């Protein structure tokens, strides 16, 4: 959301109207918050869950809990925390694959994995889509909260402070989760290297 758009939209007035059960204001609020919510949902979308369904769940929680918003944090941060928690709940509910296997990868993904395991060179930008899909499969092996942290840190390149604002977690907890996630990924790569050699 650009600053101009942010300035043009009077969030406080809109919230007052929503509290007075103004349907037009509620619609405006959804349209204003949708880009923020959908980016979080897309980045942390569990398998077999439609992004629109998950976004709807997030918005319903926002409206239901609107009376609890005290203004201690900026409203977009409060909404993003609800979105993050909802995504984590869905990721927890889905059954994790017991093992990451070469056989599950497409040809492009397998080539990409082979490239990062065997070559010291940077991966070609042309293979970015295969890399993105491979990353998504690798991240499925992590615990939901660890996955969320590593996604924000290494893929979205957010700072610790930004992640703290979006999730409500302390920076120490974020560091611990990032460390745990990277260690798990490291083990995963080691296992894959052994399998590739064998």
């Amino acid at each position, binding site marked *: 959301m650009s600053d101009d758009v942010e300035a043009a939209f009077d969030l406080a007035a809109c919230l007052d109207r929503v509290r007075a*059960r103004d*349907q*037009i204001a*509620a*619609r*405006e609020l*959804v*349209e204003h918050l*949708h*880009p923020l919510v*959908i*980016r979080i949902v*897309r980045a942390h979308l569990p398998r077999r869950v439609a992004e*629109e369904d998950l*976004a*709807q769940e997030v*918005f*319903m929680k926002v*409206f*239901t809990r609107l*009376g609890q918003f005290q203004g201690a944090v900026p409203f977009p941060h409060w909404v993003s925390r609800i979105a993050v928690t909802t995504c984590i709940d869905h990721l927890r509910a889905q059954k994790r694959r017991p093992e990451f296997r070469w056989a599950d990868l497409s040809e492009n993904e397998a080539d*990409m*994995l082979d490239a*990062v*395991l*065997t*070559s*010291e060179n*940077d*991966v*070609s*930008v042309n*293979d*970015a*889509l295969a*890399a*993105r899909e*491979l*990353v998504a499969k*690798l991240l499925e092996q992590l615990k939901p909260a660890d996955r969320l942290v590593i996604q924000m840190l*290494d*893929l979205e*390149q957010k700072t610790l402070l930004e992640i703290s604002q979006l999730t409500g977690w302390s920076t120490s907890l974020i560091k611990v989760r990032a460390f745990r996630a*990277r260690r798990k*990924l*490291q*083990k*995963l*790569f*080691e296992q894959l*290297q052994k399998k590739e050699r064998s």
Partner: protein
Amino acid sequence: MKTSGSAWQRLAAAARHSPERNDDAAPFGFSTRIAALALAVEQPVEGVRVNPFWWRALGAALALMIVSIAANYSSISLTADGDLDPFDPVAEVLTTS
């Protein structure tokens, strides 16, 4: 062979170059549906506001009942003892028949 940590970093760096989706705007009808659903749900906060009023009304009714019982205690106790009102014509007809 590269260390696994850097393998992850290079993979993440490659993934970052994948094109981002730009269709962030709400799909047609989405905001209308959410607004209708959200405002159709009864706000729990309103229920909390009404409850103290109910309790106050109940307390006032109980106090009024106690005062009225106390004020009319003598006539109530007479009726309970089975004494007849000497000026009750219906009771008089019933006892004579």
